[in-house]
């Protein structure tokens, strides 16, 4: 028979054993040792660290800790040190570049903005592609609060941004369906399992850390330095572009005449014009935690404050997050109970992106010869909205920055409570309750822009009557899990661990929103401050699911492991007959080096993995039935006719057709991988190949309006994702007392293909604009950009119009796909005694994106790309004119100075606004010093370190991108974001310092 015991914190143990019996001493991460029991009452053993298997234990499904060796699918674990070395506020940013096969995208580097996580490519055309976040065993909401409105977009972040990375002990990223199946539909895009820090027995730790980080503009569009204000080659003082004559450095008047006077300036290029507008951003993070416990009870509390103010002058772009966390765990007799509770409050404000009077749009329509900082005093008579130099739909950026604004507030509570009881030595039951609830409030206002009567800008398109909108939401999620755990040791070599469970998940959202389209009293922003009728809406959304599941791991002699996961869900969101979904996965691993210990001289550790899994995916609530909706009739994309109006109400047959036959999506994934390390772990490789298919893709399918409907939630096709993930680690120098140098290469590829599509469809629209769109086509890489091209005659010559400017073909073409060919992270870490230096390069190659920054700076003639032929008359080579339908003659019309602007804005040239989004970024540089024990011995500190942190210090992009940081997007962080950006705020680079202390 076999008996066992555990040691206490100090390593003491006692066990009854007969003389001659064998005691096996094992501990995770250490080499197992065996001793025969002799006559002596005490046997002392010093376990040695098993370097083959660092970070041995991973937290897998349902908070169960498993040896990494037992897992037959790719799991990457990031521990707290790695996570927090860069002092990131946002957890997704903190794992950026650290997990193979995971692409983290930021819609912007605005304070508090969203960071999205895409694991193994986009697998859903219509639904979310974000992973499921599990904190201490319970799912938490990762909902986003953003608007991708072209007329003023905002991003107030995602739910995962509320998690304080400092509270995290470790993150496990589950990638393959064979291991995620247990979590239900939301796990189809992978699972991020977060284990928070807990108190440790008989030890009191007080941790303190503080960071101060400064940020600056990373990339501004490059401007041409030859031509200044004007249009059509003429110098006009009111123009918002640089189509004027060539610079001559003469002193000229500019702007409007105000009180019979006018300003003077040289007609010359303004270097660093945009850069000078921006400020240095600041952010501060402070964290204090106290943790400790007795033998039976442990606890931890932590407080964290993070504030930041971005690079826009003023605090219009700012963010603050406060988190308070309490966790405890107690073991009394057969009962273990505990839990954690987090309170988070966030607040912030963001600067609108997009067209119209957004600050960024105002900025990019300032000619290259005007110093933007001249406008800083926006109440000055020359600079105010009445006399600002241009009337063309833009105004003083400082006015917009100071007078328009937004505010976001969120109060959130989430946590887990669990209790488990040991029934006997091999089984236990448990219950875990998870809650995640928040209330948030968003307000957005635009100032009245009213030029004085008779002033130059009176009656122009710049004027607007102001606006105010406010939205409140309550989002709640309750999760109940019941478990029955078994741990059977069939023999000393054969072991079965098994968990049976029942899951109930309930999600509820309610929202109330109101907006008014004018403001009466300037400077007072309120729903009440308007004579116009408010537009209001209230929404409720409910969804529920039940699941029963089993997960079992069979292990043989620490060398062979087999895990099976099986789950049946019942979803409220699907039609009754399709609501029950059964799925599961199986994975296996073999530790070759335990089977053949003799090869350890060469191969220090070898593990092979194999897995296959399926997951069923439901959809959003209320997608099945057709609906009748309140009358709100689009008016040319700019406005609506919103009922009630004129004392009448109206309702429309909704534009979404019903679909009583909707089926769940099904993700099927196969993966194979190996973990190998050589020469005493000096070289290690972790390699995975996966092949995933998602069938019955649920998509909000755009329908031809002539069917009477414009969309339907439907099962339309199959997406496949295939890719490689490889992590190579080299310990080039290893000397525990001296110089160490570690290098790692983190490489992944993913090819997403729309393998099949409903026969009735040639392609589906995923988003974008009317000019350039994001689409998917059968057999093609997922998400393509489609847009206009020049019309050509039968001989392939470009057809130009009467002015020599290319004419657009009525048939659009595919420009290319938006996927990266590969991503590569290269990290180097050097250390010598207490000093360490690490840097990470992020390389992403391939893919296209749309850039409105390109579009607008080409429209205004500011872009460096707008000087073809030095703006001299130019005949498009091999061009023809269509003299009558189908009859073409050689073109002899040169584009002249009057029409150069028409050339750059021509629809036929839309391709020029689509750029290669490849880049190389110096993602992170960290230089730190950890004080040696000798120094801090006499201080109250137990541990003390200081680091200097640099982020995004360098950015390299290909020739075609003279405009932006290709990581920015104004379309969120999911599939739509692949489209690109619509006048996004610029990204930043930053430099800071962090101090960490433990008492």
């Amino acid at each position, binding site marked *: 028979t076999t008996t066992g015991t555990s040691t206490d914190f100090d390593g003491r143990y006692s066990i009854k054993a007969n003389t001659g019996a064998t005691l096996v001493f094992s501990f995770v991460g250490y080499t197992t040792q065996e001793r025969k029991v002799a006559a002596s009452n005490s046997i002392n053993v010093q376990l040695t660290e098993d370097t083959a298997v660092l970070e041995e234990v991973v937290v897998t499904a349902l908070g169960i800790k498993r040896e990494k060796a037992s897992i037959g699918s790719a799991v990457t674990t990031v521990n707290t040190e790695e996570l927090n070395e860069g002092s990131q506020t946002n957890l997704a940013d903190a794992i950026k570049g650290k997990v193979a096969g995971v692409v983290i995208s930021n819609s912007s580097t605005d304070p508090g903005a969203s960071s999205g996580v895409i694991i193994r490519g986009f697998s859903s055309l219509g639904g979310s592609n974000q992973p499921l976040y599990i904190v201490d065993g319970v799912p938490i909401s990762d909902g986003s609060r953003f608007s991708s409105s072209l007329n003023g977009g905002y991003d107030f972040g995602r739910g995962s941004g509320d998690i304080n990375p400092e509270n995290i002990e470790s993150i496990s990223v589950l990638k393959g369906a064979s291991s995620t199946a247990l979590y239900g539909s939301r796990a189809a895009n992978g699972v991020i399992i977060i284990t928070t820090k807990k108190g440790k027995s008989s030890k009191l730790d007080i941790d303190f850390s503080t960071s101060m980080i400064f940020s600056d503009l990373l990339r501004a569009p490059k401007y041409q330095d030859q031509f200044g204000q004007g*249009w*059509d080659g003429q110098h006009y003082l009111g123009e918002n572009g640089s189509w004027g004559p060539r610079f001559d450095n003469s002193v000229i008047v500019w702007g409007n005449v105000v009180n019979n006077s006018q300003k003077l300036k040289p007609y010359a290029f303004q270097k660093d014009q945009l850069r000078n507008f921006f400020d240095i951003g600041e952010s501060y993070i402070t964290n204090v935690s106290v943790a400790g416990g007795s033998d039976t009870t442990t606890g931890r509390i932590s407080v964290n404050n993070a504030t930041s103010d971005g690079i826009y002058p003023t605090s219009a772009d700012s963010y603050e997050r406060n988190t308070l966390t309490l966790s405890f765990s107690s073991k009394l007799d057969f009962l273990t109970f505990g839990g954690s509770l987090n309170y988070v409050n966030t607040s912030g404000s963001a600067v609108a992106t997009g067209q119209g009077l957004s600050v960024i749009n105002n900025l990019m329509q300032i000619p290259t010869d005007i110093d933007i900082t001249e406008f800083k005093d926006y109440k000055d008579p020359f600079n105010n909205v009445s006399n600002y130099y241009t*009337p063309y*739909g833009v105004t003083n950026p400082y006015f917009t920055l100071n007078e328009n604004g937004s505010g976001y507030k969120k109060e959130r509570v989430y946590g887990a409570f669990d209790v488990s009881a040991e029934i006997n030595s091999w089984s236990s039951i448990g219950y875990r309750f998870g809650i995640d609830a928040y209330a948030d409030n968003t307000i957005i206002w635009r100032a009245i822009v009213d030029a004085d009567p008779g002033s130059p800008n009176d*009656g*122009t398109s710049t004027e607007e*009557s102001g606006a105010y909108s406010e939205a409140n939401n309550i989002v709640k999620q309750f999760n109940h899990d019941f478990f029955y755990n078994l741990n059977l040791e069939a023999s000393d070599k054969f072991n079965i661990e098994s968990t049976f469970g029942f899951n109930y998940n309930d999600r509820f959202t309610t929202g109330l929103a109101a907006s008014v*389209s*004018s403001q009466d009293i300037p400077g007072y922003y309120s729903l009440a401050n308007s004579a*116009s*009728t408010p*537009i209001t809406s209230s929404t409720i959304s409910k969804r529920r699911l*039940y699941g029963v599941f089993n997960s079992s791991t069979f292990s043989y002699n620490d060398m062979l492991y087999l895990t099976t996961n099986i789950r049946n869900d019942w979803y409220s*969101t699907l039609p009754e007959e399709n*609501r029950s979904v059964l799925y599961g996965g199986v994975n296996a691993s073999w530790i070759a080096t335990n089977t053949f210990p003799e090869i350890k001289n060469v191969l220090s550790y070898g593990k092979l993995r194999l897995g296959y899994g399926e997951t069923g995916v439901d959809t959003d*609530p*209320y997608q099945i*039935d057709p*609906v*009748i*909706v309140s009358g709100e*009739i*689009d*008016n*040319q994309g*700019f*406005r609506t*006719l919103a*009922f009630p*109006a*004129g004392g*009448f109400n*109206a*309702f*429309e*047959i909704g*534009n979404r*057709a*019903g*679909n009583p036959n909707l089926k769940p999506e099904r993700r099927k994934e196969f993966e194979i991988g190996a973990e190998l390390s050589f020469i005493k772990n000096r070289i290690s490789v972790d390699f995975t190949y996966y092949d995933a298919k998602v069938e019955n893709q649920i998509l909000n399918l*755009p*329908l*031809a*309006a002539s*069917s*009477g409907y*414009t969309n339907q939630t439907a099962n339309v096709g199959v997406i496949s994702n295939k890719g490689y993930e490889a992590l190579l680690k080299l310990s080039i120098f290893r000397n525990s007392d001296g110089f160490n140098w570690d290098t790692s290469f983190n490489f992944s590829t993913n090819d997403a293909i729309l393998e099949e599509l409903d026969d009735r469809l040639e392609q589906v*629209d995923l988003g974008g604009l*009317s000019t350039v769109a994001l*689409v998917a086509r059968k057999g093609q890489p997922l998400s393509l950009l489609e847009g206009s091209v020049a019309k050509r005659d039968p001989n392939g010559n470009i057809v130009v*119009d009467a002015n020599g400017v290319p*004419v*657009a073909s*009525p*048939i659009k073409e595919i420009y290319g796909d938006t996927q990266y060919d590969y991503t590569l992270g290269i990290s180097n870490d050097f250390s010598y005694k207490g000093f360490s230096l690490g840097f990470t390069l992020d390389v992403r190659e391939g893919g296209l994106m749309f850039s409105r920054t390109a579009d607008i700076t080409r429209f205004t003639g500011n872009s460096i790309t707008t000087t073809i032929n030095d703006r001299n008359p130019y005949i498009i080579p091999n061009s023809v*004119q269509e*003299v*009558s*339908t189908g009859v073409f003659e050689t073109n002899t019309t040169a584009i002249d100075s009057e029409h150069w602007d028409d050339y750059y804005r021509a*629809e036929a040239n839309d391709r020029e606004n689509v750029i290669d989004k490849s880049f190389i970024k110096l993602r992170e540089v960290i230089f730190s010093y950890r004080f040696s024990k000798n120094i801090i011995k006499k201080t109250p500190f137990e541990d003390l370190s200081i680091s200097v942190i640099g982020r995004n210090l360098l950015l390299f992009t290909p020739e075609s991108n003279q405009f932006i940081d290709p990581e920015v997007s104004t379309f969120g962080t999911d599939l739509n974001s692949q489209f690109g950006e619509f006048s996004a705020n610029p990204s930043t680079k930053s430099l800071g310092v962090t101090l960490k202390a433990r008492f």
Partner: protein
Amino acid sequence: CEEDLNINTNPNTPVGADKSFILTAAQGSIARVLGGDLTNLGGFLAQYHTQPGTASQYLEIDTYNMNTDYANRLWNELYAGALNDLEHVKKVSDEENDTGSYLIATLLQTYTYQVLTDLFGSIPYSEALLGAGNINPKPDAGETIYPALIESIDTALAKYNSDSVASTVGTQDIIYSANMSDWVKFANTLKLKMYLRMAYTSQANPTAVNALLAANNFISSDAKFSVYSAIKEENKNNPFYDVQIDRLGDVNNIASLSLLNFYTDNSDPRIDAVYRKNTAGLHRGIDSGDRASVASVLATAFSRPNIKPNTPVYLLTVSESNFLQAEALIRYAGGTGADAKYNAGVLNSFLTYGLTAAQANALTGSGGAYEYVPSATVETAVRQVMVQKWASLAYVNNIEAFFELTRTKYPEIKTFGTQNYTIGNLIVSRNSVLPAGQTPKTLFYPGDEVKRNSNLDQKASLTEKIWWDQK
């Protein structure tokens, strides 16, 4: 457990709604397209307005370069908004045996289809509005749609006449408050309009037209839609006012000399009803497409469309009805009585613009600038009617003005600067990108529809003629 999962009925939307609410939305959709995009587009093409040098929002229209995305929104709104809502109203009316409402919905559907086919030519009709049952409706030729539409009116009329049930929609019918006699008149007027549209085709039907003339039961009050707020209020105003004037800042549409000079030359008081004077208190316009000559002059220096926050959107006016009757009399009844209808056309135009009968009569009376001159030749007589119709549709129904000038070639379109231009003609937009002398006759199919409907192929050019354009 199963019961707990039955929570997928949307609590945010009504499960059912009386058809009257749906009818209002359908009328709103039609009005929004007619009074929004099509007032803007028609205004450029019929040369009521043009683009100033200091704006470029509608340069594509001004230069005859409308792209394949131009019509996405109006197409969606008419098919998925108006037509599909009306399909629902028809279905429910049928179930409720409300023959009055059935007639109203049929007429509005017919009107909408007629606008669509006049703009695009072949469009989905017989296979349209089948929902997910057919997501690739094949297009039907205009030649087959017109007779089918007239037949659908006749069927609905027959249904109503055999069992006259007054519509239950009441004042939710914004146009005629469910007054069935007004709707029957609307039916006749719409039929007359459609028959005349076919005047130059082999499907011209003088017998049917004469029957309508004999019955003489045409509209006696303007068919117009307005739920619009009298004060400036975003999303509650006339669609052209809301977008072009308020949202886009009133900078894109300035008076075209084609119409402005016509009014000035004839001392027509409608000039002040149709245009607002510039900030200097004067009327000023430019030739259509001549923005280069005023490159840096703001829109405020020109006359601009006089559309108010609550200006109604007109589907059919008494003025238009009279001009149609005048044309019909000239074409098919020897012209007797055409003068009276012509005069009534001008008179009612003045009334629609809020002017007086006396002002109209001064122009149509003996020796007046608009005095009707009987003529032996049909075309000469028709020209008078059509020029007046053009001058009376400005901001009343701009797209109808475009259709009619495309059909009849009146007013004539001349190339700028040529000797044969006279006031009352149109010119080829001065910044046209089309080959010399050409003007748009149609729109490209919306890119969205072409992409999603595999049975619809894009047309080759904007100069493809609509089937009834045969003169």
